[in-house]
């Protein structure tokens, strides 16, 4: 289980490759489910130019560890990786990577969905958008899905 809060831009596919290569997973897994969330250039009818992502250092990491432990107790998960961006983002920048390794596909699919939904609904991160039309606004709530 690995949680990374990243203040710089990252390439999720490179992260995934490096992590898997360095792990002790070997040939124990038959399934890897991966979710990548990226920044859109629009939201609520406005063009978004940039975004600042804030977190609560300490609580965010601790909370993500907790939801990984919950997933581990519910599914036969061999390993998981969460990388989440903070700081100044531009459209198309990756925001989040969630990857789950398991022996069979059901656990990987279900645990990754669970991790992503829990992260969105409860991990302390906040987005402030910079609009093309000028001005900034805090995102008030996440989309339902």
């Amino acid at each position, binding site marked *: 289980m690995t949680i990374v809060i990243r203040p710089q831009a990252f390439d999720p596919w490179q992260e995934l490759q490096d992590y898997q290569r360095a792990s002790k997973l070997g040939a124990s897994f038959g399934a890897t489910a991966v979710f990548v*969330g990226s920044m859109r250039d629009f939201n609520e009818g406005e063009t978004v130019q940039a975004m600042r*992502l*804030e*977190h*609560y250092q*300490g*609580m965010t990491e*601790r*909370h993500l560890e907790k939801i990984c432990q919950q997933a581990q107790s519910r599914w036969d998960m061999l390993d998981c990786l969460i990388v*989440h961006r903070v700081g100044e983002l531009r459209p198309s920048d990756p*925001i*989040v990577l969630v990857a789950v390794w398991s022996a069979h596909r059901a656990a990987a699919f279900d645990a990754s969905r669970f991790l*992503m939904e829990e*992260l*969105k*609904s*409860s*991990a*302390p*991160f*906040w*987005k*402030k958008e910079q609009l093309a039309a000028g001005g900034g606004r*805090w*995102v*008030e*709530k*996440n989309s339902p899905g």
Partner: protein
Amino acid sequence: MSIQVRYFAALRERMGREHDQVDVFPEATVAAVWARAAGDTPLPTNTLCAVNMEYAEPSASVRDGDEVAFFPPVTGG
């Protein structure tokens, strides 16, 4: 009892500061910490609270040296 209070995101901007240090009576609740720090400003609807980096209800009690945080709904991912 001395409590460290922290504010995040839109709430931090609204308060005009990142943190406060407040003194509260023994067995005070999170809500009492807010009242002490924010004065007449009521706790905005939907505000989330945490004590020592764990989610807590406004009715939860605090202890000397605790860190109490207030923040708006989260929007990560």
